[in-house]
């Protein structure tokens, strides 16, 4: 069976009895409407001429124009002349008005008409008309018209070929103003793009554990303390025996993920829990949630008991976790902020550890004075006792496919002697204004290590945006560069803007000064922190590091692709190079290359490795540590 068979078959059947009945019913209904109008004496106004369309003898152009006029459409008629420039052109009153002219005021010529069409559309319109004429085929064309006042309307025209005595004799365009339709179409297209691009807030979730992040939980605690009040449990975990060095980062991550899973199983869906630091877990209980809910102390006990008795599997081995918890109760409307309460919880957990009890409970937040003092002394103590280590992570130059740079990263020694990522510590240090001391420690020790090495690579050192406010920082850095005999051109300082740049002028002074010394300047975590576009304009930045949250799922997220490629375009236009963080697979690298990103950093190109356990111990030579892992880092 093919189309012709189907058409033939369809033509055989007239209306079915059902349809005939419907037609009869319809006829009766129309008749009765008519009869009612007739009986009640009101006139049904018929606004269409009762002209037999088949009985008129006018030429085609007139006929089409008349039909268009009835339908409130405009027409333009074109007839070719004997020679170029002699063609006849005319438009209907309706069409003149669509073009913004009073009927009869403009003598239409081809030049005049082209003048009225938007310059970007002229070529397309001419092409459409020419093709229609040459191929004797109707067509449709939508274009913009510039009205005398300058306003722009969208017009859609139906192009048709006229015939006179069987010969093509001209073109007639029947058109209407479709601006409203066109705008609606554009809006629909925009909304479709928007809904495709709109993504869930991934930054609120830790990629490894799927738990809310520290900043998300901080916000939640803040919300709770402003409204209902409640309790915050902070659980501190650490392996009971030091994990063997043979364990890779993946193994540690696996352990963290299984702790997260267990925590969620204990807490359930009622409470919000989050990863608030390395080996630090927060659980928020709000008073409003459930009156019958178990008290925070009981839940804390249960978490500690379960964690202590559970055997967590790490690479065919099992490990016990030493666990302590701190509980902070707070009423609705307390002055302590969410971040303060989190720190109190951490301190309470740490007290439990040092006092040898499973859980410490605070009935209310500690005083601001006490908290700040304790935080400050913690930071100072860490600095003085060198509870830090420096790690380095390779950065690949994507145009060379080689590791040409390293970022120097800080690690903090935890209670069990493990070196852990310092974000909870840095967050706290930044909040109590002690970050400068940490930054100075990092600068001094990093430059010392670099100075001892071969200085074959380029090193990137982090400085908090807050520290830039310190007028002495530039002198300190310059002095350290000289003291450790570091080539300044081998250094780039990354400004981490987890907090607002405190003093714009001071920051600018530092940035300008450090550039004069010969070091490079980079903006870290670009796109999520406080770094604004204006920083790109007035800070002498050489490198922008796009925040990892735009990079991790770039292969699946068109929104992230759009953001990354446009940050690249913007930066390159401003003479700034671009690095991408959190690069986790080969596919991402290819995509980043396509976007024009200059540098890639992440687990795919190399994980952070310890440079030295502790500067005093000097167990490994710096030369050894800074050796490039291999020439082709991507292999």
């Amino acid at each position: 069976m093919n189309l012709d068979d189907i058409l033939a078959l369809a033509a055989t059947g007239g209306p079915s009895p059902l349809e005939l009945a419907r037609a009869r019913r319809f006829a009766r209904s129309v008749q009765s409407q008519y009869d009612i109008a007739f009986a009640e004496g009101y006139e049904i106004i018929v606004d269409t001429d009762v002209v037999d369309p088949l009985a008129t003898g006018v030429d085609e152009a007139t006929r089409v124009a008349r039909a268009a006029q009835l339908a409130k459409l405009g027409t333009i008629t074109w007839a070719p002349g004997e020679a170029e420039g002699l063609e006849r052109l005319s438009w209907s009153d309706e069409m003149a008005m669509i073009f913004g002219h009073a009927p009869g005021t403009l003598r239409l010529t081809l030049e005049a008409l082209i003048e009225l069409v938007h310059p970007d559309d002229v070529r397309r319109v001419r092409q459409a008309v020419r093709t229609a004429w040459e191929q004797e085929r109707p067509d449709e064309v939508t274009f913009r018209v510039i009205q005398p006042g300058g306003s722009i309307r969208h017009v859609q025209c139906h192009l048709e070929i006229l015939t006179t005595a069987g010969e093509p004799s001209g073109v007639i365009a029947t058109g209407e103003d479709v601006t409203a339709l066109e705008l609606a179409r554009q809006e629909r297209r925009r909304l479709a793009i928007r809904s495709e691009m709109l993504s869930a807030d991934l930054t609120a979730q830790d990629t490894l554990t799927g738990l809310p992040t520290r900043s998300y939980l901080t916000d939640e605690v803040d919300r709770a303390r402003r409204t209902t009040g409640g309790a915050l449990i902070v659980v501190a975990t650490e392996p009971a025996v030091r994990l063997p060095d043979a364990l890779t980062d993946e193994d540690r991550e696996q352990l963290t993920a299984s702790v997260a899973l267990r925590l969620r199983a204990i807490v359930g869906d009622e409470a919000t829990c989050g990863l608030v630091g390395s080996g630090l877990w927060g659980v928020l209980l709000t008073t409003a949630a459930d009156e019958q809910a178990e008290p925070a102390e009981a839940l804390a006990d249960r978490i500690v008991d379960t964690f202590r008795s559970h055997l967590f599997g790490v690479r065919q081995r099992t490990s016990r976790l030493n666990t302590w918890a701190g509980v902070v109760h707070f009423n609705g409307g307390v002055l302590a902020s969410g971040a303060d309460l989190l720190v109190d919880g951490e301190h309470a957990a740490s007290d439990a550890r040092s006092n040898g009890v499973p859980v410490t409970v605070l009935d209310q937040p500690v005083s601001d004075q006490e908290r700040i003092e304790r935080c400050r002394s913690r930071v100072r103590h860490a600095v003085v006792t060198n509870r830090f280590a420096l790690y380095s992570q390779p950065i690949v130059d994507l145009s060379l496919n080689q590791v040409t740079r390293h970022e120097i990263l800080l690690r903090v020694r935890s209670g069990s002697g493990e070196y852990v990522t310092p974000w909870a510590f840095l967050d706290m240090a930044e909040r109590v204004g002690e970050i400068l001391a940490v930054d100075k420690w990092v600068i001094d020790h990093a430059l010392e290590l670099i100075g001892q090495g071969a200085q074959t690579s380029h090193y990137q050192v982090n400085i908090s945006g807050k520290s830039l406010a310190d007028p002495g920082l530039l002198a300190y850095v310059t002095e350290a560069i000289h003291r450790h005999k570091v080539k300044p051109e081998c250094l780039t300082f990354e400004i981490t803007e987890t907090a607002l740049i405190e003093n714009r002028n001071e920051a600018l002074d530092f940035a300008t000064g450090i550039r004069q010394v010969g070091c490079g300047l980079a903006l870290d975590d670009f796109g999520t922190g406080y770094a604004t576009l204006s920083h790109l304009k007035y800070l002498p930045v050489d490198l922008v590091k796009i925040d990892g949250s735009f990079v991790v799922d770039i292969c699946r997220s068109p929104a992230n692709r759009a953001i990354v490629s446009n940050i690249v375009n913007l930066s390159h236009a401003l003479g700034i190079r671009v690095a991408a963080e959190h690069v986790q697979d080969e596919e991402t690298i290819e995509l980043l290359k396509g976007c024009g990103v200059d540098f890639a950093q992440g687990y795919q190109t190399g994980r952070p490795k310890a440079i030295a356990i502790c500067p005093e111990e000097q167990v490994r030579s710096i030369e050894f540590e800074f050796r490039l892992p291999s020439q082709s880092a991507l292999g």
Partner: protein
Amino acid sequence: MTEVEGTAALTPEPADREAARKAAAARLKAEHDREFAAFVEASYHKVEGILRAECRDRDMVEDALNEAYLHGRVKWSTLRDHVKRIGWVIITARFKILKDQQRRQREAAMAPEDLPPAPQSNIVDAWEAQEVLSTWLSQLPSRQAVVFQMEHDGFSNQEIARILGVTEISVRSYKAAAKKRLRELAEEAGYTDSESRRRQGGSRESR
């Protein structure tokens, strides 16, 4: 009024004449009613099919049909003399649809997602053939669809051009384009070989 009375006085049995006039009018109306009913019955199906080929909004078509036929009834005394009465109804209904669409400022073409799925089974009767045809027509540009539907309903090129207010070259072009696209759609749906040819082939094999 007095004058009328005077004239009336001259005429014999004015009441009878009045009654006769009324009776004649009633007879005429009854005749027109009959004619009109027959016309509706004969044309409704066709007009509906043509309008639906162009406009996919069933309610809009329904409203337009109602208005066009009602106006047709009002003007029946003129309309009944037309060469092709159905043409006037189609024109009137199309203007009504056009006005509605302009008022609602929405696209004549709706998304093809709203269409019923094409039947996959073999087409056995005229009704099924019409169904599958209308499914395919709804995937064509509306001008092509309506031209094709009208041709299918037996209108000549000239009639189609005049009713739709387009040129005759356009009608020819749209018809060819519609045919081409329908053939593609039929092939996509798996209707590729002619029934007659297949039968022949089958019989040859069995021999």
